[in-house]
């Protein structure tokens, strides 16, 4: 590995008011979001701390994906606000946001007509973390992408391989917050193993990892497990 995939010191914590507050990187207060004329999220409170692996689950249509979009600043909440290191998201410049929050969604966030290596090289230079070929290659090795696939186009990857490459993109971004939507989709048992290891390592290195998942393997690993119900987050049993 050329460098640590997730330097923890990128985001400076806000003025410390206590041990907990100091470590909270991404905080949502009173967040509400409506689909059409119905509130899906309401009075939602959440704080994601640096170095923790936080899992969110909830039934279909509970608003998990919308919550993720709000947390990464893609859509503005109807009410309430989200702060990144104490700064409201709407005041954070788009590129700063892109540098500090990395997301993995249903689509892997890759160009299908570029190879895995080219994707990593391009997308990492966009967030000011340019990777050398060796570094990119090492990352792809780390997520378990076969060597011969590095130079193939992503279009010819299987769903699981695309997911792995997407994970490598998140690791390459060097972001302090990871937001992952169902990261284990399409992964085989070995892939899940890899995913668990990568997330644990990232959290250990100080990254705040928030994943939407129902994967028991990840649940066993998580520091906290919250359930999204009735528009709010509850401690899961």
């Amino acid at each position, binding site marked *: 590995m050329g460098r640590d995939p997730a330097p923890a010191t990128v985001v400076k914590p806000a003025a410390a008011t206590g041990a907990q507050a100091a470590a909270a990187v991404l905080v949502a207060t009173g967040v509400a979001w409506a689909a059409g004329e119905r509130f899906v999220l309401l009075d939602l409170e959440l704080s994601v701390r640096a170095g923790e692996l936080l899992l969110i689950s909830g039934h279909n249509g509970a608003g998990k994906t919308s919550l993720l979009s709000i947390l990464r600043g893609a859509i503005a909440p109807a009410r309430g606000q989200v702060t990144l290191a104490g700064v409201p998201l709407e005041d954070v410049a*788009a*590129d700063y946001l*892109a540098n500090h929050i990395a997301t993995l*969604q249903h*689509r892997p*966030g*890759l*160009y299908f007509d570029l190879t895995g290596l*080219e994707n990593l090289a*391009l997308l990492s230079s966009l967030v000011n973390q340019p990777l050398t070929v060796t570094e990119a290659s090492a990352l792809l090795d780390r997520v378990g992408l076969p060597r011969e696939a590095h130079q193939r186009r992503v279009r010819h990857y299987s769903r699981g391989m695309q997911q792995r490459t997407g994970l490598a993109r998140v690791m390459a971004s060097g972001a302090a917050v990871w937001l992952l939507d169902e990261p284990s989709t399409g992964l085989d048992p070995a892939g899940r193993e890899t995913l668990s290891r990568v997330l644990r390592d990232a959290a250990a290195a100080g990254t705040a990892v928030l994943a939407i998942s129902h994967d028991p393997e990840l649940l066993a690993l998580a520091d906290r497990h919250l359930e999204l119900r009735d528009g709010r987050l509850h401690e899961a049993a």
Partner: protein
Amino acid sequence: MTVARITWLLLKKDLRIAARSREMLGFTLLFAVLCVIVFAFGFLQEGAATAGYVPGVLWVTLLFSSSVSLLRLFAPEEEGGTLDLVSSTAAGTLPLFISKATMQLLFTGLVTVVVLPLVLLFFNTELKGFGQTAAALGLGLVGMATVGTLCSALLVHVRLREVLLPLVLYPTVAPLLISGVKVTSIALAEGEGTGDWLTLMLIFDLLFVVASPWLHGRALQR
């Protein structure tokens, strides 16, 4: 500096993707050729296609084929879900816009290079006033590429955009189209007085080149 660097990165990527999916360019060229042939059929009079239709056929073919390629302009981003990643760069949305507009310009430029001789050949016309025609085509393509990229970007997440794209694009580029046809017909007839039309096209180009990236940034903000 950042703008230039990121734009180059994105443009290089687009060129690479275009080179790897050559089918797209090939099919667009085929479509343009087909357009010309169909127009020739449509305007057949007493067994010969009439030369008077050359400017119209040329410009309308260019407009149609540019709409076809505009509908695919953001396809690589949509397919892999990278639009968010490339539109939130340190230089904002500008590099994305410039790289896409450049791609569209290159694309339609290539189509023009193929279509122009073909139209002249099919309609038995000699190319006179080449300078004026080239200037009009150049100005027209620049304007159409910038406005087209804006339309394409606006409609990425919109349902029924295949229908909506022409509805926005054609009224907006109508001034360019009308003056382009005028200049071409004057030039082909070796007439005088294309200067005013070219100036008009230049004014609209300037307006489009300045306004389109700005509107793009405003409309796609978070």
